[in-house]
């Protein structure tokens, strides 16, 4: 076993680095650039029961050290993901993949998860109850402990693989939501999704994003993510996947000290498409610098 190995819900990862959903498509755009089998795994584009075009454009706005997106879960729907995207993914990635799922009702979530659970290559289901960019869905399930638990329980009932529930930071008490998901059977918790943000164009006096608001991500949100990962990891027994503004090997180590078993990298992929490979290659150097023998020993190691 290598120095970088971690175990996420019973599945061994060669390293803790995971490109986050919505920044890595179904993998093949990046496979043109480098061998993506160096990744621990990746979380593929958020998938819903029905095909979605998503929100009107502009969907992107820049911020200091970050960006806002309001893509709105554009995806071809679970049937096409299974019949068209997963076969293409399999051509360039030979490890278990994390299937990211969103929905607009509890039965939606259960249906999509059940379909993806049957796919051999799917290792984990990451259930997104935190998308800030769709009305009447996504985040509304993740801002109420009862609703989040209901989704978790419904998904657990129809699936066999580890279920990781992805939480929103746009809440008063993230710990109560994480605990509710754990009690409902979640095998892991991932956080944080994007923070709700907004930018206004001074010239037109209109919001830059057509949907007005969107999800703020990028290195600017890293401290918020570390704080929330720390709070949740101290409150639940299941593994925590940390994300939010991670863009270096040092950030990965910091996230793991806060309590993350594995670490997702999101917006940074869009700026430097090689960032995940670079972080993985740089991790041994950073570990040496800080006297870390194996990464698994530092999980939750903050004093």
């Amino acid at each position: 076993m290598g120095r970088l190995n971690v175990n996420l819900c019973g599945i061994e990862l060669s390293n803790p680095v995971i490109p986050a959903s919505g920044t890595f498509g179904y993998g093949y755009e990046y496979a043109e650039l480098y061998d993506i089998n160096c990744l621990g795994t990746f979380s593929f584009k958020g998938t819903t029961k029905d095909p979605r075009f998503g929100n009107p454009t502009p969907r992107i706005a820049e911020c200091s050290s970050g960006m806002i997106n309001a893509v709105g879960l554009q995806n071809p729907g679970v049937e096409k993901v299974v019949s068209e995207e997963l076969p293409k993914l399999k051509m360039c990635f030979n490890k278990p993949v994390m299937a990211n799922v969103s929905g607009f009702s509890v039965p939606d979530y259960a249906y999509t998860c059940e379909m993806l659970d049957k796919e051999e290559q799917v290792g984990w289901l990451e259930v997104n109850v935190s998308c800030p960019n769709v009305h009447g869905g996504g985040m509304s399930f993740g801002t109420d402990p009862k609703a989040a638990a209901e989704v978790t329980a419904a998904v657990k009932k129809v699936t066999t693989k580890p279920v990781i529930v992805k939480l929103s930071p746009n809440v008063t008490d993230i710990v109560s939501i994480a605990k509710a998901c754990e009690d409902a059977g979640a095998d892991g918790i991932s956080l944080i999704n994007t923070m709700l943000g907004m930018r206004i164009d001074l010239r037109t006096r209109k919001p830059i994003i057509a949907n007005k608001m969107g999800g703020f991500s990028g290195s600017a949100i890293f401290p918020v993510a570390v704080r929330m990962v720390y709070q949740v990891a101290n409150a639940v027994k299941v593994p925590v996947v940390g994300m939010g503004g991670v863009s270096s090997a040092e950030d990965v180590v910091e996230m793991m000290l806060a309590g993350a078993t594995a670490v997702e990298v999101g917006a940074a992929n869009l700026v430097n498409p090689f960032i995940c490979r670079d972080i993985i290659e740089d991790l041994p150097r950073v570990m040496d610098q800080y006297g870390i023998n194996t990464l698994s020993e530092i999980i939750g190691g903050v004093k």
Partner: protein
Amino acid sequence: MKQSYFEIISNTALTENVFKMELRGDVSHITAPGQFVNIKLEGLYLRRPISVCDVQGDTLTIIYKAVGKGTRLMSQMKEGKLDVLTGLGNGYDLTVAGEKPVLLGGGVGVPPMYMLARKLIAEGKQVRVILGFNTKNEVFYENEFRALGADVTVTTVDGSYGMKGFVTDAMKEMDYTYFYTCGPEPMLKAVYKTSVTSGQMSFEKRMGCGFGACMGCSCKTITGYKRICKEGPVMRKEEILWED
């Protein structure tokens, strides 16, 4: 697509706020006129997508308008290296041009027409170019297009230089086998309506990544959803679905 570093060779003003930058580096992934590059700038989070004006030898020429933080920062650069993603977007298809294609560029939509004109002329086509600007002091690259051997018409909205009116006013009087265009969306719409042949137009949208990963620049077309950065920015007239 390729990520590499380019050396700034020159960066000069063509008009009050339009600049031409020459960069030296690995241009092997730039395969067609109409493609773009995506440039990382110190202190700014997202890369800046800029269309390719020309590639000769190992020199990449881009022409950009200083309108926002990023392009204003670029306009002040004199030397140094830039982190650039190259080989982005589909580019124009030259094989369908016919003998007498017309190329219409509006404002900063002019630059991608340059390499396209050069390539079409090299193939022996009779190339007509219509360059549209608002006013005389915004005009650039007229002589460069003439030097290629293109038949050039310049239009200005206020009539202060060349023909008074829009590029479509000049287009109406022309006989052509195909059209290629790039410019602001109202101009593209006007060209779409005025044109009597098939053609291709290049679109612009706010992008996240520029290489097809984030779905930030999606649009609807007759043949399904497309990403401006990946399946575009060039679309065929027949597949365009105007949003309003």
